[in-house]
């Protein structure tokens, strides 16, 4: 069974989690152009590599960040947004 570590609830089966897509910074909607906004809405960095992603622990309603390699499917760390991202205590590999 695949596992993922929720920063609030510890290591849980992957079936309890929902993938929320890549974490991205929104451009300033007051100053950006229509084309920049359209690119933000639609485009994604689809190439494989290390990514910062939103994940959701469904039973507890916790949104958090996972840093994961989309080629190897290994998670290097998970943390709540705003928490110290260098804290590797919760680091957990997604596939056991």
């Amino acid at each position: 069974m695949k596992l993922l570590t929720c920063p609030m609830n510890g290591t849980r089966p992957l079936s309890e989690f929902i993938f929320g897509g890549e974490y991205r910074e929104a451009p300033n909607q007051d100053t950006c152009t229509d084309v920049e906004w359209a690119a933000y809405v639609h485009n994604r960095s689809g190439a494989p590599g290390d990514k910062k992603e939103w994940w959701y622990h469904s039973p507890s309603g916790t949104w958090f960040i996972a840093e994961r390699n989309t080629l190897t499917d290994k998670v290097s760390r998970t943390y709540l947004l705003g928490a110290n991202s260098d804290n590797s205590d919760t680091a957990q590999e997604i596939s056991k």
Partner: protein
Amino acid sequence: MPLRLLKFALSKGHPAPRFFRALETPKKSYDVVIIGGGGHGLAAAYYLAKDHGITNVAVLEKGYIGGGNTGRNTTIVRSNYLTPEGVNFYDASVKIYEGLSEELDLNLFYSTRGHYTLAHTESAMRTMRWRAEVNKHVGVESRVVGPDEIAKACPQLDLSCSGQAPILGALFHAPGSVARHDGVAWGYARGADRLGAEIYQNTEVLGIDVKNGKVCGVKTNKGYIETKQVLCAVAGFTPRITEMVDLETPIVIHPLQACVTEPMKPWLNSIFVSGSLHVYLSQSSRGELVMGSSLDPYEVHSTRSTLDFVEGLTSHMLDMFPFLSNVKVVRQWAGMADMTPDFAPIMGKTPIEGFYIDAGWGTWGFKATPISGKTMAQTIANDSAPDLIHSFRLSRFEDYELTGEKGAASVGH
């Protein structure tokens, strides 16, 4: 029956000759370089030569031809889509498929079976009615049928689905077919090769040279190739190629898995799809049940298979066909689906001059192989995309003119 088979049986020249020349090192330059030796890339090479007389073409394939998503799909060909643009496009593909065995002189086992998309809820029935009306309007044979007609077409189907999800009706699409998918790649490869195009296997593209917004060459593991026109037809590898030319797209890669059972006597003529139960199923010419389900739930660039998938799929299969409980699954595999937000492909020109894209084929690419080859060949030859694929252009996203086909995806994704 293709004449070739009869000639081969009567000839003394066994084994059969190669399908295409075994070429090793590409030339220094080509008019057109096609990245990706799957069905789409090979079809584009074939139609470039046949329809437009452009034969100084190299198809570069990093593995072997048809070894990607062309050989990994569940081989269903249909045109019962939701938008008129989609229905017109896929209908053109079905029409080419119907005569393709003759044209390529290769038996593609193209077999028209009829295609039932089952509805288990009122809201699903509403989508079926919508699709049926759009299809009829465009001239494609689709209609909504009730449980009685479904039972007649397939008496083995448990209409109550174990009491979990009773079937209220279905969208019946008469032209729905299956074909031998690797044969499609081989047929187009042989056709293109005979007309002069060159196919290089084990040839990986490492970079694309762009100067002043124009393509000028391709770096490969077998040396540098000068060219002014490049077609990217690499399905699940699209983001890796578009990254080489700094082109942003909405494409995200999710694995899509499938499996087959051991062969059995023919019992299932039609193709059955259940969106709610996430199952699609047909019986191949060899007697195997070919089964697929929804996408894996998160982005991974991998073709690994999972036990979760087989367990989920087979439990729903048994809701529909309880008598299959003793049948064994003998193979499972995955492909990398290049998903778009509106479930329509991305085809045509890009902001980079000479860089053409045939991508975003997600879970719906095999059925479009002939027409995408034909329209991409037109796009390259004329440096202008035909009207048939206007709704699939990359710039539709910045224009906010998406082509919403999610309602016609075979199962909910």
